């Protein structure tokens, strides 16, 4: 009840679970745990994932395993057998399937994801709980998290079964008197973001269309960057307009050339369609364990996977055949 005795009517609300927004908790976390100094944040993927991805964490990422996504970091999450993660699948590809096959996730906030038998079987076995949102609503919840506000109004989701299965609310807008939907902010425990370039402090550049890399990094308590290239900090200061993320948002910098493999980083290397088909076939045939053994568990690192499982010859082909570079590095 407001001091003047007026209330804002909640007309309807969904039943989906969500973490209660806590903007002050986020601010305190930033005050107490985020380094404002320029410090060298380079570390191995093993260290980054073991330090910043805890069991039970809410994990967000940008974009997906097909295109400029943090594929190498996801494989490390699987390799370290992280458990009970809650995944934000805003425009996910088969990332959610990989992490489900690896036994890493128990909840998904879904916008869109590639789905096959792995996810359907996990849901039917009660191992995986799905909360229905939309791509846009999830990106928008990250925006709310990035703004440091507890919720934002939006003009969709209402009236649907998505609304019913989500944590959205429908209220009477006190300004227009019309119905408007609210969605809660999300402040992920950790974000995994693959970038084109960054310096050792985490000043990062992303080229090409994004999904919500800035909102995702700002909203998240911890940010792990994997990067195709580590560049000199002087280069960053020469072209400040090219910086997508400033250093103080970032906790870890992992040098990961071909970090999106088997996906593409546009302008650098194309996707390995043969690998994507191998993945698809493994899922259809129920051989995800063998796939994960080959590509994740039997190698100690991303570098070893590239050397032993992909090979320099294939990597060179993927680079050579990404002939369209306009707008990225030119």
């Amino acid at each position, binding site marked *: 009840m407001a001091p003047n005795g007026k209330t804002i009517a909640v007309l309807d609300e969904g039943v989906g679970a969500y973490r209660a927004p806590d903007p002050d908790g986020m601010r305190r976390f930033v005050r107490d745990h985020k380094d404002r100094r320029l410090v060298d944040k380079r570390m191995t993927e093993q260290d980054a994932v073991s330090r910043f991805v805890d069991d039970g964490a809410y994990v967000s990422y940008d974009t997906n395993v097909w295109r400029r996504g943090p594929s190498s970091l996801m494989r490390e999450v699987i390799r370290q057998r992280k458990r009970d993660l809650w995944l934000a699948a805003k425009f996910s590809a088969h990332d959610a399937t990989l992490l489900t096959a690896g036994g890493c996730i128990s909840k998904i906030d879904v916008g869109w994801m590639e789905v096959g038998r792995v996810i359907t079987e996990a849901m039917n076995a009660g191992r995986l709980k799905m909360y229905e949102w939309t791509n846009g609503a999830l990106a928008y919840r990250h925006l709310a998290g990035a703004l440091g506000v507890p919720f934002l109004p939006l003009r969709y989701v*209402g009236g649907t079964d998505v609304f019913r299965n989500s944590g959205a609310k429908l209220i009477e807008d006190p300004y227009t008197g019309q119905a408007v939907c609210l969605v809660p902010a999300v402040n992920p425990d950790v974000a995994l973001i693959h970038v084109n370039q960054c310096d050792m402090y985490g000043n990062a550049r992303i080229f090409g269309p994004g999904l919500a890399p800035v909102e995702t990094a700002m909203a998240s308590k911890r940010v792990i960057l994997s990067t195709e290239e580590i560049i000199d900090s002087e280069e960053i200061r020469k072209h400040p307009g090219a910086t997508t993320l400033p250093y103080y948002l970032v906790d870890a910098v992992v040098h990961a050339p071909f970090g999106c493999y088997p996906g593409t980083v546009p302008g650098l290397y194309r996707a390995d369609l043969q690998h994507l088909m191998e993945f698809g076939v493994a899922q259809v045939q129920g051989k995800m364990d063998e796939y994960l053994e080959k590509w994740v568990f039997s190698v100690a690192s991303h570098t070893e996977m590239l050397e032993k499982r992909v090979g320099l010859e294939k990597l060179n082909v993927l680079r050579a055949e990404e002939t369209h570079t306009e707008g990225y590095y030119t």
Partner: protein
Amino acid sequence: MTAALTFTTNEAAIVYTSRLMEEDRLYFVAIGGPPLLAILLAKQLRTPKIAYVVEDGTIAPEMPVPTPPFMVGAGLASSRAVAWTDMNTVDFHAGLGYLDYGVLAAVQVDEYGNFNSTFLGDDFDRPARRFGGPGGATEIASLCWRTILMTRLERRKFVKKLDFMSSPGFLDGSLGARERAGMPAETGPYRVVTERAVFGFDDETRRMKLLAVAPWSSIDEVLGEMEFAPLVAADVAPLDPPTEEELAMLRANIDPTGRTISGDWITLEDAGGTLRRAAAEPATTNA
């Protein structure tokens, strides 16, 4: 125009959708699949000045043809855009009213144009068949002025009750239902396009209305493939079959891998001036 004699169900729906495109309009289109192909086909053959945005934030790209394989992932899909933004930005543009049409695919649709892209079955937590989820379809179908849906004409798709309403049409069909659920005024579904029929929506009741039927099919056949009974326009128009030019462009340039245009074959015979389906048709090209 030459009547093509053999085409797939998906090719027909893509061609009919491409013919609905209006020059100089701005489209919000699903990032892959038949809706994107319909836009690309329209830009090549009919309406070169339409522009589209996709939900990764790419604005007005000019994808070269032949299109690259694995289009959703390919950098070429965003080439020659006027801007590379992000998901929130293009959704804001739609929220402001800049996006005239949304073009989307649906798993199931009901008589008010509400649709499902989430799951089939009776238990959300234990789906008989789970799909990718709403993706960007809910915001696109809510915020664009008009929405065009694409699907197959089958009883299991045109249902009385959706297994799950991922995205809104006219909701329960009552006046102002969308506004009461928080959506912008004067928006909603506009056309539903299938391989043999095109539907619109009645202004008064907001119920689906049959507008056009392929000459090789019939109103009765169309109604027989629907669980609910749509309204039928007083003057149901014929749907001209895909032309050789449209099919050649689709097959050679828009989907050279054949991944999206594959479907059930339809073969037509010219029987003394009227087109009818051939008695024997080859098997389905995919499941």
